[in-house]
């Protein structure tokens, strides 16, 4: 009796401990009954599902135990879109845009040549076109813009152009300083844009002369001089490009200087899409602006250089502006003809 009870206990305890172990390892362990129809006994059938959530919300967000809300984004496939934009679309689109602008200007230069002043000989009388505040603002903004454009292009063209030439270490050092320059020169650029808006918006409101100017393409081809007030339609287009794209650059730039302050990850990606697209367009516009203000037209540079232009040039290019000046009686700055010979 005792022996049978002891043996029984031993057999029972063996069965309890060994049999489940055998079931875990053995090939003959019956697969769960629900294998054929998974949903029948799937305890997590109604739980969060990756593909379903991605379709519904485009990204997966949850809760984390660390005090950084950015870490709560589990997955944002939009990062792949950002990769496509940054590495495929942006280099090609901006490259083609800027190259096309340079090519168009080159074709214009070699077919039409420099726009000279033959039909409006120098009168010797100088009038002020831009005062010292206007010129200071222009050149502050211009210097900043060139620094910003070069360091900005470095963010995606640098590794394709400069990197192979100078190697990883030198390129990394240069890019580090370029980034700091980009972040620093942003502020004088923004200040310049704001001052320019206040100073020049009055003279850049579209008026009745603009349509004719545009129809005749500013006389660039026909060699005529359609009338214009202080700014012609072409200059107004430059101004409004600078305002629109400059403000877009300033806004998105500040957003990027303070990342995740107002926008989430997808907002930050869009800030870059807007910033780089606006930058590429504005770079192309400013290349045309630099061309026409220096090489493209005789006498144009003086306006922003010394601030004074010859009355003959002004009559040819800004006839209505000269009439307005006469009407209000603004005196010429100086008359070279009557200056004493030293």
């Amino acid at each position: 009796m005792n022996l049978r009870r002891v043996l029984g206990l031993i057999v029972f305890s063996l069965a309890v401990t060994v049999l489940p172990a055998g079931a875990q390892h053995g090939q003959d362990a019956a697969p769960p009954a629900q294998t054929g129809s998974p949903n029948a006994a799937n305890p997590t059938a109604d739980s969060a599902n990756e593909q379903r959530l991605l379709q519904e919300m485009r990204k997966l967000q949850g809760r984390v135990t660390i005090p950084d809300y950015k870490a709560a984004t589990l997955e944002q496939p939009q990062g792949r879109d950002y990769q496509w934009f940054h590495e495929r679309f942006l280099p090609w689109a901006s490259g083609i845009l800027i190259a096309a602008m340079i090519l168009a200007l080159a074709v214009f230069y070699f077919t039409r040549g420099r726009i000279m002043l033959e039909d409006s000989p120098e009168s010797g009388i100088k009038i002020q076109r831009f005062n010292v505040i206007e010129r200071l603002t222009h050149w502050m903004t211009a210097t900043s813009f060139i620094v910003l454009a070069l360091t900005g292009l470095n963010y995606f063209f640098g590794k394709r152009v400069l990197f192979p030439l100078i190697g990883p270490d030198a390129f990394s050092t240069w890019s580090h300083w370029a980034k700091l320059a980009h972040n620093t020169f942003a502020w004088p650029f923004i200040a310049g844009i704001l001052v320019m808006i206040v100073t020049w918006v009055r003279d850049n409101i579209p008026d009745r002369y603009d349509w004719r100017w545009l129809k005749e393409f500013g006389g660039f081809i026909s060699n005529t001089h359609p009338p214009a007030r202080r700014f012609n339609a072409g200059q107004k287009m430059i101004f409004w490009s600078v305002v629109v794209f400059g403000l877009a650059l300033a806004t998105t730039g500040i957003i990027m200087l303070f990342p995740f302050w107002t926008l989430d990850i997808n907002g930050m990606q869009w800030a870059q899409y807007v910033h780089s697209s606006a930058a590429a367009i504005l770079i192309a516009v400013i290349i045309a602006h630099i061309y026409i203000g220096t090489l493209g037209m005789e006498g144009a540079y003086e306006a922003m250089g010394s601030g004074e232009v010859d009355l003959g040039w002004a009559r040819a290019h800004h006839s209505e502006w000269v009439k307005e000046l006469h009407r209000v009686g603004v005196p010429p700055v100086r008359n070279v003809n009557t200056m004493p010979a030293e």
Partner: protein
Amino acid sequence: MARMKFLCDADRCIECNACATACKNEHDVPWGINRRRVITLNDGKPGERSVSMACMHCTNAPCAAVCPVDCFFTTADAVVLHSKDLCIGCGYCFYACPFGAPQYPRVGNFGSRGKMDKCTYCAGGPEADNSPAEYAKYGRNRLAEGKLPLCAEMCSTKSLLAGDGEIIAQIYKERVRQRGYGSGAWGWQTAYRESVAT
């Protein structure tokens, strides 16, 4: 050569956060940097699910593609690593990363993020394996010692799997076959352009 991947079996993750803790401890990761974290979806509601997430070491990695100074490189085991000496802290990799993996020592005001830090798959950086310089910048190089990432190695429920992609996918498929259900390999479609057929 192996093609190293992570696979989080979300049906097994119990949000114990031991993977994140192990990672921090193994690599002396500074405060504020989270190379791995556990995210809970539908927290406290029916259908709650937790997933452990770090760098997935993507195929055609977006971080490496957008890096303006090309500081990323992919090892023979397909682990995506980077050089902190070359990194300029621009933050683009964080915008491109589908999984929020890149981390920065400082908040990014005025672009002063500092050098990016992320999961190295316990494979260190470009320096000599397990040299003091490598440890200081990237943490321990377990792969060079023949070990797998610690987060997965010590996962209490074996939810987090690390190793060659084909092998861990096979383990996961077998699990799904045995238990009859599985929510799939989270993030694989985005990271590797393929999922685990179950």
